[in-house]
């Protein structure tokens, strides 16, 4: 009975919030927090390395106009989950090198779907894949494994605009 009720729930019934916006001017530069960001459709966040073409992976054909990660993942890491020998640490929103930190958004479930962030529309092109690069940069051994399968999303910007922390993140039909 309970299972039936859950199945009848709309799997896309959630509402989330944008917590933080970060950009970096070039590869390896420390991330900087923004109180407001301009998203340009088909390109990126104004001032960010992947908008400017100065990112580590800029030369690679891929979608990384804007990247997102869940605050819930950062909180799990802060309490030592997953339990990987030798891995502990705190990953702050300014450290993880994704652009947007979200709360209440099931990012992994959105691959291939559109969703709203404030007045903008993003298309979730692929799951983000963690990289040894960030482990090295932050001097946090084990972080690569710690982020496997929960490293967030790489998105294209379909409708640009201005976003701010506190903006609602909402699912869209289709």
């Amino acid at each position, binding site marked *: 009975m309970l299972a039936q009720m859950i199945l009848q729930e709309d799997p896309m019934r959630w509402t989330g919030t944008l917590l933080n916006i970060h950009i970096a001017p*070039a*590869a*390896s*530069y*420390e991330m900087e927090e923004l109180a407001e960001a301009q998203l340009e459709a088909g390109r990126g966040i104004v001032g960010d390395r992947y908008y400017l073409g100065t990112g*580590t*992976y800029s*030369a*690679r054909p891929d979608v990384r106009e804007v990247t997102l990660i869940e605050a819930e993942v950062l909180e799990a890491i802060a309490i030592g989950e997953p339990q990987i020998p030798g891995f502990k640490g705190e990953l702050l929103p300014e450290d993880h090198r994704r652009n947007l930190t979200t709360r209440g958004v099931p990012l992994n479930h959105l691959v291939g779907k559109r969703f709203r962030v404030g007045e903008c529309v993003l298309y979730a092109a692929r799951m983000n*894949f963690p*990289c*040894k*690069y960030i482990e*090295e*940069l*932050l*001097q946090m051994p084990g972080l*690569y494994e710690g982020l496997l399968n929960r490293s967030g999303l790489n998105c294209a910007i379909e409708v640009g605009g201005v976003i701010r922390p506190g903006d609602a993140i909402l699912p869209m039909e289709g």
Partner: protein
Amino acid sequence: MAAPRLIMKLRVAALRPTGGETLVVEFQHPRKPQLPAFTPGAHVDLHLPDGKVRQYSLCGDPADRSRYVIAIKREAQGAVSGWLHDHLREGMILPVSAPRNHFPMQPTEGPVTLVAAGIGITPVLSMARALGAEGRPFALHYVAPSRASAPLLDDLEALCPEGSLHLHLREETGARPDLEALLATPAKGAQLYHCGPAGFMAAVEAATRHWPEGSVHSEAFQPPDLGPPQPFTLRLKDGRELPVAANETALQVLRAAGVPLMASCENGLCGSCECGWSAGMPLHRDRVLSPEARSRRFIPCVSRAEGVIALDL
């Protein structure tokens, strides 16, 4: 190539001149009270507006994470050091990398001898600070033409315990120090760290040739000169030999041969395509493997080899 390091936009918090046409620069983070930690002998990269990058040893106290202190000597032919001397002002923001240490102190208990000439004093100064903080005895030999040309002499005199600082000033002795005599008898378990101009370092090496292996350490900022890519050959575990042309990567050749290998960045950064090597002469060009890992691991998307390299594939 070195592994990536975080680059921070740091504020010039203080500037003061010291001996030998040298400028002492103190950096702080504009927003954070603590900077990434460093150990004695570490250096940072300064990123200049024209894209040039220069390495400077940290000469401050490793226990004080609120600031990085470097000393920049104005080099006669140095466009960068001249620019920094002329243009750095308090309050300026400059991109500075997180520290890295290619000149670490060994975790030993024995006596420590520090030998520096001129601006080579910078890494040695942070070592002296750390040894002093631990209450460990050390001898520091500092070589310079004169007091006026010796950078950071005031700092040294303030921090070195009585009898540990040995100045070798040509204006006083009229000669270069006799390094052979000075370093003739290594104490049991002694470690020696030296830094200075190339000629000076060669002289210290010559004077310590009889010291036990692994007891003499020096700083070398020498990025390998990577020439244009050359062809080489991969040997697989099944005996196959795969030639890699100058315009190909090992990863491309492995893929074409049907060897399954994960890959992501193909820039030598992410480590996805990492594999093992067992024989040959690898030319590591990745920015992910540690020096220790390079003795057995290989990043085929960017690294190459001389002749034939045997991979664990």
